[in-house]
């Protein structure tokens, strides 16, 4: 039987600066602490956590200290903390941090090749696809590993991405939370075993202790991680822990099913509540038997957040007029209240969002314990 634990969860760490007692201005120990922050747009508030950098194990070290490391994207606070750790503690030869938008610069291929990276850390998957487009068939010969962070990615998707890369570049899935850093990483043996899976499988990072709250080895429940600075922390991800010995030597694997739920998603000042979307979609219950709304964002050249949306629908029966059904769905959702005085139609008109698109799919793949109806996804998926 498991011991009783007092779990820390997101609600506990959004009240103030978590672990503020670790910081004393002017003290030498400041050099080995850093902020971790979450974006605050997933509906659970902004977390600002101070962590001791020297107690966390950067993912890059699972494959030896990188000689030349590039990090693309991710929260700036977290990047600062990571850069400080990599340069000061782990003594990486050289490190460069780029913005996602930098991948669209005309000279970026030459710049990255000149830097001669051995390892690249990149998030989200949309940026990796841009990176692959930039290099096409001429990747930097120095590049050995790419670590992919950001949103959930299945083994099947990971295998598809690996196929787009030359054989000498190994793609590693970095399973991480903004507020905790990396929790797990993919392993070639496990990836091969589950290559067709719509779930994700990772080994816990060395030094990271994980468990599930459900005390159930058969069914997924919420993953908890024993973090040096957060204690036993509820991650909000649905997982199952498989105890077995992998050929790589690691003795457990985390089977990740995805986020447990998003009750609301905020993008560009607009807030989408799942229950309000459900209310609007109820009027189509005869024609549409299932749906999922994707909300994504990126920053434009003026550094303003810009939103993209798509709704996938599964038809209950063939409609008399497909185009009219799609238009009716769009019209209904444009009346969705997303701000105190604004509807979704208003924010589309204000060009905060691109117009809503509707796509018909055969089935909605369910991830997580609860039914997920709102999901944030990388931009690239919307473009597809």
């Amino acid at each position: 039987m498991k011991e009783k634990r007092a779990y820390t969860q997101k609600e506990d760490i959004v009240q103030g600066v978590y672990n503020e007692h670790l910081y004393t201005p002017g003290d030498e120990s400041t050099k080995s602490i850093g902020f971790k922050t979450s974006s605050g747009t997933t509906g659970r508030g902004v977390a600002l956590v101070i962590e001791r950098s020297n107690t966390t194990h950067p993912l890059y070290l699972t494959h030896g200290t990188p000689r030349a490391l590039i990090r693309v994207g991710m929260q700036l606070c977290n990047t600062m903390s990571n850069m400080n750790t990599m340069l000061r503690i782990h003594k990486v030869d050289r490190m460069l941090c780029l913005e996602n938008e930098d991948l669209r610069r005309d000279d970026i291929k030459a710049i990255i090749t000149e830097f001669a990276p051995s390892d690249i850390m990149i998030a989200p998957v949309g940026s990796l696809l841009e990176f692959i487009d930039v290099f096409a068939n001429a990747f930097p010969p120095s590049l050995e590993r790419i670590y992919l962070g950001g949103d959930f990615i299945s083994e099947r998707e990971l295998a598809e991405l690996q196929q787009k890369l030359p054989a000498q570049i190994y793609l590693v899935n970095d399973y991480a939370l903004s507020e905790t850093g990396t929790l797990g990483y993919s392993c070639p043996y496990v990836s091969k075993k589950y290559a067709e899976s719509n779930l994700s499988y990772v080994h816990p990072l060395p030094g990271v202790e994980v468990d599930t709250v459900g005390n159930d080895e058969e069914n997924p429940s919420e993953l908890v991680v024993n973090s040096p600075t957060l204690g036993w922390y509820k991650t909000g991800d649905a997982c199952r822990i498989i105890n077995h010995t992998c050929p790589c030597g690691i003795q457990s694997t985390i089977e990740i099913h995805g986020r447990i739920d998003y009750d609301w998603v905020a993008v560009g000042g607009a807030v989408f509540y799942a229950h309000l979307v459900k209310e609007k979609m109820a009027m189509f219950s005869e024609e549409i038997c299932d749906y999922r709304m994707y909300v994504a964002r990126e920053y434009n050249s003026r550094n303003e957040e810009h939103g993209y949306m798509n709704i996938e629908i599964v038809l209950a029966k063939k409609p008399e007029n497909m185009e009219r059904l799609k238009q009716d769905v769009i019209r209904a959702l444009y009346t969705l209240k997303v701000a105190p005085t604004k509807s979704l139609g208003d924010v589309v008109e204000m060009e905060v969002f691109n117009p809503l698109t509707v796509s018909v799919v055969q089935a909605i793949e369910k991830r997580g314990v609860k039914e997920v109806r709102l999901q944030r996804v990388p931009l690239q998926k919307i473009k597809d």
Partner: protein
Amino acid sequence: MTRTVQQVVQNILANLPSERPLYKEQTYEQLKPTSWGAIIAVPFLKRALVPTQETMMTILVKHGHQSALFGQTIKNIARESYGNTAFKRPAVAFVDRSESLQKGMWFYEHRILPLLLTPHAPIAKIQMEKYQCDSFVGSNESLYMYKTSFPESVKHVYIIDSHLNLKLLCDLVANNYKVSFVLALPEAGALGNLIIESLTDSAPVFTTHDSAYLEHGRETLVTKLYANPTPILKYKTNFHTEPAPEHSGSPCFKLL
């Protein structure tokens, strides 16, 4: 030019490897001015000349459509002077990620924990409120993005930029912020700190940073007096400057 400057530059040149596409000469006097174009014409790893035992923070410097990599050591980043930096909880936000990280590293070396802001102003506001930031460090452009999000705890604004925006500075002073302005280039670091009393003069006056040696003129040449992996020696800038009388014993220049 003082003897010290000559000696420091000579030491930097003496430590360069024999193959040196950028600086072939042996003394400061022999050196020819270098420009952005001359630097980016040499590949980064050939340009990163000074051998160092330290790890190298690399920054991407952008000039319009062109960009180039510059290597810096943490120790040298810490040597930059940002004037009267009496802050304990700085919020750091530059439009460019490299610059934010470079300045963030400065704070780490000075044993101050910097809060690097997200580019999303409403979230940044929450972050600043939580950390009770006492100061904001950024560029003219980032200041425009974030100034309406400042919590009351922010009392001091540090602008580090290559352009002086008089209206912006005057507005901040009028709104009772303590203001500091540092004239700087990302690749060359700080050149001078604005004497705020000269703000309304026809040509504002700066105290010259002690790690920068300037040859004033229509295209002022800057030499950084420390051995960065990518050295900055007689680097041609767009600043039009001329010497000004000393201020509190420090050499000064006017920005024309």
